């Protein structure tokens, strides 16, 4: 792999840009791998990357039915924060956030991490109390957050209206090292690094069956033939239930559509992320100048990657009350992704009833922020059989009543 650098840009500028190489190799499946990862989204790719980087396991294939990063990783609103409530969440989300700080250097790929600050508006008395509680919890967890007053909110976000009749701004939970990153670049950066370690990323190849012998996984069936493996990692977000079914177990997960939209580009008006959970809306401004807006989730099971118009209307209607200047903007694009929801709104990183088969799913509406931390912990779980980061996120926690309840911190889509 040729490294990217300022020097490389200068060299290529002088030589007609003929020396750039493909970011990752095209690969055809081999007969056997030590580890097969199903799903080349951010979580699958990060898992493979840390398997190689931390544990020296590089005989790895990542199998993707579409194109890499084409699932939720390429469809989200890229908010990164770690101000959750429960300790296991704080550990994995803060690990992820801190890895994001140096990810561009680690991968030699600009993921455009922008710790511009994440503001979660408190627009009801209940939210004020909830966020004060979160601030105290975060202080104990070593996650730096602060409750700010309406005056401070207005100073950071001048376009906001504080005294809306229905949704007054009563304060906000502020994490100054939260922010955004370029979603595609995160997938591409990990993919390039995996490929450079000799791993095979096999696109347009769907896993159609899981092979097992005496309760142990032995490989997968795919549209490009059978592939044997010692260990299997299922990291397919919205299709977790479908692939788990092939492996012979059930998951406490339901899939719904979550949607987002972007406006026409305008000059910079807002340099942080604002989330308004009461009205199910959140917004940031991309480097191109588009206002990136995320909305609520559908109320019914859905695999169609398509949103409902009335949710967009609800989100936009409410956001306009808090940001009146938005009313003049045209909306340009609108899309949906299928998110995998658990009952306690926390993910599953777990062994499964099938030996040698592991699952990483349930990130639902908020897993982009977690990609590096999830890959870090899940790789450890797959390599060593346990990881302090994933311990509490077992698929059996529901049965055991050990929920990691984040319905307040993650109840809205982000």
């Amino acid at each position, binding site marked *: 792999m040729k490294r990217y650098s300022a020097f490389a840009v200068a060299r290529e500028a002088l030589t007609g840009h003929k020396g750039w190489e493909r970011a990752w190799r095209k690969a055809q499946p081999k007969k056997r791998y030590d580890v097969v990862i199903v799903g080349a989204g951010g979580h699958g790719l990060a898992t493979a990357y840390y398997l190689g980087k931390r544990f020296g396991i590089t005989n790895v294939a990542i199998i993707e039915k579409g194109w890499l990063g084409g699932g939720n990783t390429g469809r989200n609103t890229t908010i990164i924060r770690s101000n959750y409530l429960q300790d296991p969440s704080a550990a994995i989300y803060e690990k992820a956030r801190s890895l994001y700080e140096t990810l561009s250097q680690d991968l030699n790929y600009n993921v455009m991490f922008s710790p511009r600050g994440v503001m979660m508006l408190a627009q009801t008395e209940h939210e004020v109390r909830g966020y004060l509680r979160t601030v105290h919890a975060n202080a104990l967890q070593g996650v730096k957050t602060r409750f700010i007053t309406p005056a401070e909110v207005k100073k950071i976000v001048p376009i906001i209206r504080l005294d809306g009749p229905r949704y007054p701004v009563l304060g906000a939970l502020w994490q100054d090292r939260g922010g955004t990153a370029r979603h595609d670049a995160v997938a591409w950066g990990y993919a390039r690094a995996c490929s450079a370690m000799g791993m095979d990323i096999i696109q347009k190849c769907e896993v159609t069956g899981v092979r097992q012998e005496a309760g142990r996984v032995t490989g997968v069936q795919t549209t490009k033939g059978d592939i044997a493996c010692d260990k299997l990692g299922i990291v397919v977000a919205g299709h977790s239930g479908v692939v788990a079914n092939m492996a012979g177990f059930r998951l406490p997960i339901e899939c719904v559509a979550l949607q987002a939209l972007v406006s026409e580009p305008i000059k910079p008006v807002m340099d942080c992320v604002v989330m308004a959970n009461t009205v199910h809306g959140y917004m940031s401004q991309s480097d191109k100048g588009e206002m990136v807006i995320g909305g609520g989730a559908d109320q019914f099971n*859905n695999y169609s990657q398509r949103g409902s118009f009335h949710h967009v209307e609800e989100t936009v209607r409410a956001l306009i009350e808090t940001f009146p200047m938005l009313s003049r903007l045209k909306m340009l694009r609108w899309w949906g992704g299928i998110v995998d929801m658990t009952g306690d709104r926390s993910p599953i990183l777990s062994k499964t009833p099938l030996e040698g088969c592991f699952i990483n799913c349930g990130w639902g509406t908020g897993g982009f922020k977690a990609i590096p931390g999830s890959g870090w912990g899940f790789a450890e779980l797959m390599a060593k059989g346990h990881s302090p980061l994933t311990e509490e996120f077992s698929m059996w926690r529901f049965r055991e009543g050990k929920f990691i309840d984040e319905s307040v911190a993650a109840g809205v889509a982000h």
Partner: protein
Amino acid sequence: MLTLQCPHCGVHAEETELTGGGEAHLKRFGPGSDDDAFEGYLFLRENPKGVHFERWRHSYGCGKWFHAARCTVTMEVFGTYTAQTSKPPQDLLDRISEKRPGWRWRDLNEPA
């Protein structure tokens, strides 16, 4: 936008008039049942990519609960039927089999 015909009042109600009630035909388990049954009832919802049976409520209409059979991929609605039953009507099941040969859902004679 999803529209379902309410079997009680006959209105073709659109999504905003309706409230989703999740998986249909759940069998409830209480104290004394074993861990498997209790976990299944509480947490392991059907989440099929394809034919699905659900409960819905015509909240901003007649207010009644009913059932619907729907495809979660194409959003095609196969039919709606009364809430006062523990199984979909046979003619609806036949219609689904015609359109989706080989479709599968949880065994309706088994607990959830």
